[in-house]
């Protein structure tokens, strides 16, 4: 692969991007404007931006998945591996995505989309791209062994990829992405939903890839975990890329770093698990065993633990979606559950229809919809399609569908995942409101800062 000399930094450049403007087909404004970026071998570049700022679009551009020929408008160029791809108003060349992916790999924000879902076990999923390249079985076994050690995936190799937890899915997708050994890796929220051990594994993997000469570009809502190790931190706002300064990074950190004050409660138990065992059909091992947990009115409890330790299972059981195979679950008030993946919870054509779905006409709940949309900052999106919204807003729409039923027990599965700072602030207001009205909150999370600030206590799940 050809490496060019970077005229600005003096270092060699593996990829150079100059985008004058990019606009999606049918959009009224540009998603990206004047974005210039150069990536050197072994460098770590971090782009921080709120949801909807254009991070995922930039990632797709770098991965050759955008612009769509004869649809999106793009002006600019990408230099990669000695090749220059020029986009203009007249010409938008079609890129061979498979060939491009050998140089630039993209881990999407929803990591599950990277997995093929047509392979039975994780080991096959890991070497899926090698199978398509015609690698020998020995080469594939060698790669699986290496990846298994590097990503601590030994216990997952025989598992069905469709039945992994969100964090496990991301880890497997990242491992599968690294198989092709691209010279540039674009990672969209690589640490989202990962437990502490997996976070260390991914961070170490990133360091190893850098030392091997891979250029890494991380797209993230916060710069926090990356500031110490990154070569460059940029902020992306309204489609414009700016060099980040310390003040803007600290502003983001400070915006959510406020400790919640405890609320005086009457001590009523709203939710109680006693010796509960939970499992799934066709699964030999129970997901949760011998769980004892009480959640009282005015109390906010966090569920922590490794990926796959049963946090989601507990929340689903509390919401009545799963029945315990032994033990008892007592629920003394209305529950509302926010699922981990908003796509599982959204299925209507507009945000307004989504939030009012299933509500009786002329009901009090239906009348409260505008108020809830305003509380979550979604009033202007009422007529938008939920799938067209940025990830953070989509998550808030899913939250609105829960809140409109005024649950006394709010169950939240990884609530901060995909939320930007404004979304986290809205979430905190919602939690405060539920607790102030005598309700309770039970949530699962890997976000240690959020747990420290919000939770009254933490229940550690051991799996």
């Amino acid at each position: 692969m050809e490496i060019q000399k970077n005229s600005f930094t003096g270092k060699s450049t593996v990829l150079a991007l100059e985008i004058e403007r990019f606009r999606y087909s049918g959009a009224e404004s540009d998603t990206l404007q004047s974005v210039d970026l150069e990536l050197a071998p072994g460098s770590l570049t971090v782009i921080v931006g709120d949801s909807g700022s254009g991070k995922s679009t930039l990632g797709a551009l770098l991965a050759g998945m955008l612009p769509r020929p004869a649809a999106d408008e793009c002006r600019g160029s990408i230099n990669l591996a000695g090749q220059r791809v020029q986009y203009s108003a007249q010409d938008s060349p079609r890129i061979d995505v498979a060939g491009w992916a050998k140089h630039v790999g993209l881990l999407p924000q929803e990591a599950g989309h990277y997995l093929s879902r047509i392979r039975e076990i994780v080991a096959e999923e890991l070497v899926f791209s090698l199978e398509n390249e015609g690698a020998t079985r020995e080469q594939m076994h060698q790669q699986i062994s290496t990846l298994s050690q590097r990503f601590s995936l030994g216990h997952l190799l025989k598992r069905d990829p469709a039945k992994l937890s969100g964090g496990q899915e991301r880890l497997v997708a990242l491992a599968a992405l690294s198989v092709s050994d691209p010279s540039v890796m674009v990672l969209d929220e690589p640490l989202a939903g990962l437990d502490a051990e997996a976070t260390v594994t991914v961070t170490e993997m990133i360091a190893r890839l850098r030392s091997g000469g891979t250029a890494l570009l991380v797209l993230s809502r916060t710069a926090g975990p990356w500031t110490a190790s990154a070569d460059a931190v940029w902020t992306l706002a309204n489609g414009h890329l700016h060099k980040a300064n310390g003040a803007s990074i600290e502003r983001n950190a400070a915006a959510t770093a406020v400790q919640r004050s405890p609320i005086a409660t009457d001590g009523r138990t709203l939710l109680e698990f006693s010796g509960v065992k939970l499992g799934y059909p066709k699964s030999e091992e129970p997901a949760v065993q011998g769980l004892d947990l009480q959640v009282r009115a005015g109390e906010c409890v966090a569920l922590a633990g490794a990926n796959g330790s049963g946090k989601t299972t507990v929340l689903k059981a509390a919401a009545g979606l799963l029945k315990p195979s032994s033990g008892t679950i007592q629920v003394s008030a209305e529950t509302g559950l926010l699922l981990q993946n908003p796509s599982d919870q959204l299925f209507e054509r507009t945000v307004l229809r989504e939030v009012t779905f299933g509500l009786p006409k002329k009901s009090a709940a239906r009348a409260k919809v505008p108020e809830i949309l305003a509380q979550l900052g979604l009033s202007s999106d009422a007529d938008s399609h939920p799938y067209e919204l940025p990830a953070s807003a989509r998550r808030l729409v899913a939250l609105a569908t829960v809140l409109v039923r005024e649950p006394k027990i709010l169950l939240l599965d990884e609530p901060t995942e995909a939320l930007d700072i404004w979304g986290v602030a809205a979430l905190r207001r919602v939690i405060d409101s539920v607790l102030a009205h005598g309700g309770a909150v039970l949530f699962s999370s890997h976000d240690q800062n959020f747990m420290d600030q919000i939770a009254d206590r933490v229940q550690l799940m051991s799996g």
Partner: protein
Amino acid sequence: MSRSISLHPFTVLSLAVATVTITTAAGSWLLGCAVITACLVLAGWVGRLQRLVVMAVAILLPTFASLLLIHGLVATDASALIAAAGPFRVTTGGLETAMTLGLRTAVLVVVGLLCTLLIDTHQLVAAIDLSPAPPQVGYLLAASLFLLPQMAEKQRAIGQAQTLRKAGTGRGLTGWLKRVRLRAVPLVLASLQDAHDRSVHLAARGFPAAGAHTRLRAVQDSLIQRRIRWVALFCAVMGPLVILAPLWGSK
């Protein structure tokens, strides 16, 4: 207790094809019943008898009912009359025709269902991928075979989300119909969205392969199995010819 049969998927399929063609051509009650019994014994041996029976009954009951309706109750042949009332006319010939056609269909259904229970779909796709067939064949089969399980999974997720909103929780036939109505459109839209989101990453991972490709999964095969397949395919073609040739020109 469940056992597994470690035959190459193509061996199972070629034996099934030979069995169906020869039994259908022979049109013998005895052979048809023997084949069905053998299938049931085999299903019982691998621990899937109940599933085979339930699935076969679900398909064959309406099939037999319709055949009886067409050939048994309003027979027009000149064979011995058993009963007659208004437009209905039951004859021995009509019942025999209905049962013969029903038995042929039953052999096809039971053997086909047994194949779906014996053959691991992932093994079948791997076998096609490893065969000289064009890569598109494996891709088409994988897309078709795994679409239903994926849609079922998506349907469950949508059902859970709707249950959380107290929608589609009614019981009985009305409740079931309402659930179907509420889930159908989201299911199709979510499946399309999922396919769209996933397809670009599949392409990036080189799928479907344009040229030579391999599989991590090994599909057990042997010289004996390859010979059995050739013999089975030969029998599938020549068996019906040998059985039917003497009958040609006899009517």
